[in-house]
């Protein structure tokens, strides 16, 4: 008999709630789980807390259709039921999309992530003299994109090209891109745009960039990227 059941929940975050920070989303989900009366598993001690973890924090202001949360329940429930119970108590903008039961001792989402998909666009395209879409295509087609990244050990230089796993640029300069993500060589969306604007001699500020996360991926094989909850067939 299993003592507990680990689930992976996929949810979206859209609308005004995009301004709710990562830790507050965690608190929000804890309260939603309680309102949904899910049989959550709790830690021991005087202030017990739910056993759950978010796969990859989303920057404040970004929207997403691909957020993931691993959480531990004390009873087995049908994944669909978890989704529907949560959606009954969710609020504007956060919606449970999918759920799956994980194998016993399965690794946590945050450890298996290899990439994140984004749709991004600059808010003030008027800073460009030419078509921003063309400039972006040229930039991403380079042989190498060297950026400075500050790590715990100090500043290092990284080439972004091997960390980009596919992209398309739409007419109005809207970029869809899959960036390397996870504990090693994580590429923040802002880092890419900082480099892009820098290459044009322009300064970057976070509020210039609209970010929408499409999904998070793991790699069952080198060079292959599948969503953390594979699309149901």
């Amino acid at each position, binding site marked *: 008999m299993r003592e507990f059941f680990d689930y992976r929940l996929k949810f979206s975050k*859209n*609308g*005004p*709630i995009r*301004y*709710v*920070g990562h*830790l*507050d989303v965690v*608190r*929000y989900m*804890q*309260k*939603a*789980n*309680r*309102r949904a009366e899910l049989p*959550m598993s*709790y830690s021991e*001690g*005087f*202030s*017990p*807390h*739910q056993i759950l973890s978010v796969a990859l924090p989303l920057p*404040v*202001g970004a*929207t997403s259709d691909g957020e993931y949360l691993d959480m531990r329940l004390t009873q087995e429930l049908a994944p669909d039921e978890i989704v529907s119970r949560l959606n009954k*108590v969710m*609020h*504007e*903008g956060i919606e449970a999309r999918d759920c799956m039961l994980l194998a016993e001792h399965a690794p946590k989402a945050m450890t298996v992530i290899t990439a994140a998909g984004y*749709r991004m*666009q600059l*808010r003030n395209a008027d800073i460009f003299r030419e078509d921003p879409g063309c400039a972006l295509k040229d930039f991403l087609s380079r042989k190498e994109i060297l950026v400075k990244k500050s790590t715990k050990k100090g500043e290092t230089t990284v080439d972004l090209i091997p960390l980009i796993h596919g992209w398309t640029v739409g007419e109005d300069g*809207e970029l869809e891109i899959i960036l390397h993500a996870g504990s090693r060589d994580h590429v923040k969306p802002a880092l890419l745009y900082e480099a892009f604007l820098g290459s044009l001699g322009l300064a970057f500020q*976070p*509020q210039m960039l*609209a970010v*929408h996360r499409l999904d998070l991926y793991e790699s069952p094989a080198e060079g292959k990227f599948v969503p953390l909850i594979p699309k149901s067939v």
Partner: protein
Amino acid sequence: MFASDRLALPDEILLSVEKPERYIGGEVNSVIKDKTAVDIRFAFCFPDVYEIGMSHIGIQILYGLFNSYPDVWCERVYSPWTDLDQILRDKKIPLFTLESQEPVRNFDFLGFTLQYEMCYTNVLQVLDLSGIPLYARDRKDADPLVIGGGPCTYNPEPVADFFDLFYIGEGETQYRALFDLYISCKKSGLSRDEILAAMARQIPGIYVPSLYDVTYREDGTIEEMRPNVPEVPEAVTREVVRDLSDVYYPSAPLVPFIKVTQDRVALEIMRGCIRGCRFCQAGQLYKPLREKDLEACKKSALEMLRSTGHEEISLCSLSSSDYSQLPVLLDYLIDTAGREHVNVSLPSLRIDAFSLDVMSKVQDVKKSSLTFAPEAGSQRLRDIINKGLTEEDILHGAEQAFLGGWHKVKLYFMLGLPFETAEDIEGIGDIANKIAAVYFDTVPKEARGGQSVEITASTSFFVPKPFTPFQWAAMHTKEDFLDRAQMTKQGIMAQLNQKRIRYSWHNADESVMEGIFARGDRRLSGVIHKAYRDGCMYDAWSEQFHFDRWMKAFEACGLNPAFYYLRERPEDEVFPWDFIDIGVTKQFLLREWREARAGRKSSNCRISCLGCGAARFGTGICPGADKSQPNGTERTAV
């Protein structure tokens, strides 16, 4: 890909301010209505930053109550923090409510809850950013009616010029009548002034400052305050809820996204207090003590936990130890908590065997601390302030707690109480030292687990408040206060166990300002206006508080701050707040003031009635109480 959503502020602004969550609304249990389907739009403001305002239970109650009326939509607004404040001014963006994100100035009412005096400049900030004239006399028919409520309205005079009306007393009873009257006045096309006069005449508890004239004597004190139109009451009586178990209480309180000061379910278990501590305003304002019955409390607790998903619940009252059903209620909550992983956060309870037992069930005794509020350092002064806590109570409580595993103790005192002497101040160090000694005597070295007793003593400076026996008392200068803090510190340093005692004290400037406002009169409106124009705002935040600007504002207005706080008032002085009838009579307070001077304590309502005057509400603990009467004052015939 740019979402066009309901927000008043564009992304560029929201991403450039600290904590944008403060301005987006949309919290769980917030209420959205069809604005075309309501008659009244009410903007409710707590004039401080979101995290403070959202923690306030009074707003939660009235927000829920107003929105339970189909024809009213109540929304919230808080003071924008200084970063957004500047942006709104620069870009001329009108202040908006959180729910609809629409400009406050389009509302029918703008209500402020005035919880502390130091928020007055923030009231002006909110009016200003909303584009509403600061002075009530400059407002036009299309401007919202600006209404005030909350504890500071028991002396509303310092902000009288900025408000169209005040609601004096507990909000649950008369707002429905007020709204009905507003709707009918609007239908008959009455002007702003006519509406206000009708409200003052017909709705109990309503005070319209412009309908009263104040005349002053040569010495600056009030000669008299009288209505300047007929049929407006000379005295405004506080509104009182008769039956707490049968009055609206929110079943689904708002759940903020940000971690606010009170991130938990707040369960009100009673109003009022049996203890007549002579410094305490709340103790007099909310008399008589009324309990909410046990079943109502249990039901309310479960409903709120279910609808919010909060993981913590706390009890709300002035003195929870006096709640007659406390052991049963706590048992119930701890039991539920055990099953549902809810933390029960205990209010400050009187330390005794019962409370220690309860605390040990819900807290980690090694980490939590015991709180005692002796308020004064000697028994003599504790008798004067009528604080019924003896040194023996404290030492005995501490001993039991140390045996139970606690080792942290917090002590709260006030400095500058009336009739305070050097010995009273020395007593603070003395009692802290004795507590440490009790620890060393009680807990043998081997049982200390490498820890030792930690005592924290804090002092605040005493501010005399209206409607207390100390309303006649003089306050002290800043220098005098700081001398007293210095004496306290030296008194502690001189103790044998001084290494185990930490001492902290409050900012004296802020206490002085609070003291001026607390017992101020109408003339202070000019000072507040001037100080706001000179950049004062968020005065409750030490780092934003500019004492010098305030002193300059006094000078510019030709008023002497000393008049308001340094004088002991003669017994027959007419006070600015005398026109309010809180139930407790001025004769009773005067008798208590004289008893204090004589060093005599008084009883409490449970032991024997003191005849304070509140019995006339006919409810609660008072002799002859009858809860079967409807809540609130009978509506006077029109």
